[in-house]
């Protein structure tokens, strides 16, 4: 074999080995860091974590006691958020997926706006929410204001998933229904929406995940109060805000922050996991 070829061969082999090493090194570094974070969270979070933590109220500025009112506030905020986001989201997704107006200027405008909305930084949502809901509409620091602000943030994600779900419903159903003289609305509500249900639920779950992770927007809209909320107009502290407060404003709050963080991450893992599982199920069964 001429010399040139074998030297080339060696050159390539060294390159290959280098590439493989680097790639594996990347994967290992990322995995180790992730593992570090998770283990740290588990180690400190599990210490002194008990079921009582979930049902007691915080005391001593949150250093001890539980997070029951905080869980309640979080739940209410997310509930408000989703009850606004879901109807608007499904309506918009239906329009974009099922009607030819989606290709018109109005349709393209809607899409662009949603893409832009998805990119707005969360602190800007905080500014917006506090100005519109807390001040102009007079809600003050309240769960309602927080929920409404989060609804704005969650909308693009939900719409995108819902729209994909509607689009994946086979066209034959629409044609068959049309050939039978069935109205558009009946087709949409009785055939297409039920078919797209797994995707809708997946979008719902993803939306909840996004809402739970949000902090900056909530600090300025639903506030800091860690008492059990009595109405939607009460200020309430979400779990993410609680972690922030314990970490930054309360000396010695670290232990409790770890526990709350663990609970929050566990809930999110559960939620995102079920969304993934639903998506897989949808892909496997929905097409038939």
């Amino acid at each position, binding site marked *: 074999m001429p010399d040139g070829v074998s030297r080339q061969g060696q050159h390539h082999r060294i390159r290959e080995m280098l590439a493989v090493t680097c790639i594996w090194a990347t994967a290992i570094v990322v995995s180790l860091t992730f593992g570090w974070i998770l283990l740290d*969270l588990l180690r400190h979070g599990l210490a002194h974590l008990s079921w009582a933590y979930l049902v007691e109220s915080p005391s001593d500025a949150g250093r001890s006691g539980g997070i029951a009112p905080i869980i309640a506030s979080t739940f209410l905020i997310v509930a408000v958020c989703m009850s606004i986001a879901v109807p608007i989201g499904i309506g918009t997704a239906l329009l974009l997926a099922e009607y030819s107006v989606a290709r018109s200027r109005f349709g393209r*405008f809607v899409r662009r706006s949603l893409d832009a909305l998805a990119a707005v930084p969360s*602190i800007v949502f905080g500014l917006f929410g506090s100005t519109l809901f807390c001040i102009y509409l007079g809600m003050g620091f309240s769960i309602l204001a927080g929920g409404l602000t989060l609804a704005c943030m969650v909308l693009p994600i939900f719409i995108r998933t819902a729209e994909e779900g509607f689009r994946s419903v086979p066209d034959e159903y629409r044609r068959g229904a049309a050939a039978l003289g069935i*109205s558009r609305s009946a087709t949409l509500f009785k055939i297409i929406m039920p078919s797209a249900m797994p995707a809708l639920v997946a979008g719902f779950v993803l939306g909840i995940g996004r809402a739970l992770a949000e902090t900056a927007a909530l600090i300025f809209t639903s506030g800091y109060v860690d008492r059990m909320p009595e109405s939607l107009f009460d200020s309430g502290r979400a779990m993410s805000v609680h972690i922030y407060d314990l970490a930054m404003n309360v000396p010695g709050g670290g232990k409790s922050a770890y526990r709350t963080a663990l609970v929050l991450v566990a809930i999110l893992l559960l939620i995102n996991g079920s969304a993934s599982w639903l998506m897989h199920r949808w892909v496997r069964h929905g097409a038939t």
Partner: protein
Amino acid sequence: MTSSMRRDSSPWRADTALIWTLRLLAAAAAGIVLLILVFLLIESIPALRTIGLVRFFSDASWYPLSDRFNMAPMMAASLLVTVGAIALAIPLGFGSALFCRYYAPRWIAGAYRRMIEVLAGIPSVVFGFWGLVVLVPLVTHSLIAGILILALMILPTVALIADASLARVPEELIHGSAALGLTRWGMIRRVILPAARCGLMTSVILAVARAIGETMAVLMVCGNVVQMPKGLLDPVRTLTANIALEMAYATDTHRSALFVSGLLLMVIVGLLIAMAEWISKGRIYA
């Protein structure tokens, strides 16, 4: 004459009502981002009028209570943190994507991808908290702490979007290059990466947009001192952290100035998204 064929009591009345309802809902959804812009502008105008655009860059520094509103140190901080985080996240993110697609055995790739997805779902406040209690003792409240945490946070964005665009590279290209005797890395470097170029660039741009908009994590680890950073270990305050810290007690002009910085952030991120959209010639999933 079959009167039953005339359009009298058409069930289509329900259809018309439906489409107008849908149009309304969609308009509401589309209107939100406009509303945000409008509010930002309205609240920014007092500051723009009183302080004037130039002073946002020429004042001594950011001492709002003494009427000094130079945003430049914070913009520099935001920029440097972002650039640093991207510099780390791109190789790690692309590497992860390549790892999943071409180097790892299937079960490892699946587990790894799942891990990245989990990482993507961790709230920024948890990252910030971990950074505060683990990283900061090691590197102090500083620019580098911010860079490291932010890199960790945008890594999943880069990896997942890059992975998706690698998946779109047509199989024929890969088979063809294999048939030509290219090595795995050679194929990646010369055929696959160029073919996925659009998607990869999009992933970077979206990660940048996410990094610039990040608030909580940088707030918690960077030290929040308003100064032009001269070294990696200097504490800094980003534009986003600034808003979060001062919103609570800012009044009048000061508050309005914060809105100006919010508007600036939105414009920058908006431009980035527009760029990403233009590159991928269509809708992108931010």
